[in-house]
């Protein structure tokens, strides 16, 4: 049964817009006719902590959280959080990550350094690894804040949901004034 379920993990730091990205993904999956479940933790994590959002879709989904080691796609908004979530991914899974580092408190205070060699660690274990300079591409599209949408476009290429449903989901979830830029950012991500 689990073969029919797609498991996507969206990870990063509180305030990065992870919840909106996972809402768009869930909406697109529902529009495509799938059963969808999604789960994440709110509350304390809003204050700069880690955020992990789970999205699962398929014919019939039971658990709203991705069973450990069964993730198909890891969508990382921040590098260290991407590596922290690798244990959730299955061997041969895909990683689409934003090339962005956000220092945690211990690094800010100079107690430890931000870990080096993170992309090498991902590449060593996952052959389908796409590292995206989301900020740069989004500013090319017209607004640096559309970085998540660029990555979402790249993730969408790895999922069996037709483009029309993604566009409908964007139209529903993104405010009208930012819609054109986000559609453009999404298409740029899809072409990566």
């Amino acid at each position, binding site marked *: 049964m689990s073969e029919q379920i797609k498991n996507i993990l969206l990870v990063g730091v509180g305030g990065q817009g992870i919840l909106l990205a996972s809402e768009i993904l*869930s909406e697109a999956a529902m529009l495509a006719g799938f059963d969808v*479940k999604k789960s994440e933790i709110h509350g*304390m*994590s809003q*204050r700069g902590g880690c955020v992990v959002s789970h999205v699962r879709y398929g014919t019939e989904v*039971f658990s709203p959280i991705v069973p450990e080691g069964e993730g198909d796609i890891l969508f990382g908004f921040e590098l260290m959080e991407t590596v922290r979530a690798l*244990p959730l991914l299955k061997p041969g899974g895909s990683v689409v990550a934003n090339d962005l580092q956000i220092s945690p408190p211990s690094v800010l*205070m100079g107690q430890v350094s931000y*870990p080096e060699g993170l992309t090498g660690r991902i590449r060593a274990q996952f052959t389908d690894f796409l590292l995206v300079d989301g900020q740069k591409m989004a500013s090319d599209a017209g607004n640096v804040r559309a970085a998540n949408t660029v990555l979402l476009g790249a993730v969408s290429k790895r999922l069996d949901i037709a483009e029309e449903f993604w566009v409908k989901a964007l139209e529903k979830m993104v405010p009208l004034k930012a819609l054109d830029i986000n559609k453009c950012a999404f298409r740029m991500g899809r072409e990566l």
Partner: protein
Amino acid sequence: MKEILSGNEAIARGAYEAGCLVACAYPGTPSTEILENTIAYKEINSSWAPNEKVALEVAIGASFGGGRALCTMKHVGVNVAADPLFTVSYTGVRGGLVLVVADDPEMHSSQNEQDSRNYAKFAKVPMLEPSDSQECKEFTRLAFDLSEQYDTPVMLRSSTRISHGKSIVELGERVTGLPLPKLEKNPAKLVMLPGNAKVRHPLVEQNLVALSKAGATMALNRMELRDKSIGVITAGICYQYVREVLPNASTLKLGMVHPLPRNLILEFAAKVDKLYVIEELDPFIEEQVKAMGIAAIGKDITSLCGELTPGRLRSAFGLPQPAVIPADDLPGRPPNMCPGCPHRGVFFSLNQLKAYVTGDIGCYTLGFMPPLSAMDTCVCMGASIGMATGVTKVVSDTEKKRVVAVIGDSTFLHTGINGLMDMVYNNSPATVIILDNSITAMTGRQDNPASGFTLMDVPTNAIDIPLLCKAVGVKNIRVINPLDLEETKRVISEEMERSEPSVIITNKPCVLIKRDDVFHKGPVYAVDADKCTGCRACLKIGCPAIEWRPAEDGSKKGKAHIDPLLCTGCDVCRQLCKFDAIGSVK
């Protein structure tokens, strides 16, 4: 029509469809968003109460007046609301009365992980437990019907994974034709004096027996027979994990976890070879199943602590686990106070003054974290002031001066005010700091009786906190700007020296308040690299906008850097710099 809704959104929708007229709550993760969604339905009068006890009493009143009423809270809120709960189970209802309680197994945002199902049994109130958002909506509707049918309040138990999980929900229409609320006297039922309560109690017991019998045929309790070698009794989110991990096992899915449908459980147990009970936290169902004389495996294989996950359930049944790539060598990312948070300077000062700080529940509980490290106790909402009074009753006169209670505006009005009455009444020498940031911040910026707005965003009276403290009898009340470190430290120090009760109130708002003209961002600050000596003094406030950057030549000396996107211009770091290296960017 179908929509993807969170459990909390679906509960709000269910209340709407059930014809609910009143919804009342005190915010608490993971329950908060229910009332933030009932406000979308103009037919429901939604409001924040100062605490969960008042919230339940408001809902009880609405029910007694003949309207359907919803009350929501997090698990620990039921401790506060327990007093009315245990007696409204005797009075019963007029309009349907539903109490939603959201548990937090794993303590994602809580100080304990108490299992609220025990309250249903203890208070003798039926409890429903949904497994996804569709059931959240349906069970909420059903709870109102059962409440009126059986003349009892009904509890609906959620958990973090249900409340904050999202799934597809088929929307329905709001019921019509419910009786219009109007006053109706019925003292024998609603005045719980011994003579009346003695008549009501046996009715409650009869009700539970009747509900247990009816539960055997209710659609929400569902027997699903598959492979009969393994049978699992389960409820709530655990049902989803059981279906995920043991897709072929037979299940008895309980939608009503109190009272249990005894006959259905006996029937199911007789049909399967080996019986398991899978539930998070306490062996609530398991113990009752065993008391029926049925052999079952439950807490022998699952933990009493934390939440279940598909992986943990796999381990419990000895199923193979996928190989996991380790990633535990990375620096942690604990939550932190926001850049510009007005609490930061207060905790920095308390640390410097070596105060013994009795803490409370809110964003400021993060004052416990290094480098501020200025919180010594935290037990429950409103406890800081009572604890401070208690500490001063036993320690030496010198140590008494070090005792300081910290409490937020919303928590102070929740249950802290009673502690202050006691402090003045019994003349404790401790110091209280009310961290008034004009909002209930930690749960996501909800209004409260001192913020000047209602949940429906209507301007209203804002409690004058200094005046309230004066009315309680506090003689020494100081209002300070917590972003002024010199003033903050001096005033706290002076009040700590005083041998009678004193209250210090900070007056800067939460930086996340979205309402216009509340929080004002100042000019962004920057570090002058020529003046920065790398002394690290500015790092001692733990501001997320300040980063230590090692020198580029690899020598030990590094320098501070301020992230202009995060800085709010609060000015606190500038006051710490002895070398005049930090200033606002012109």
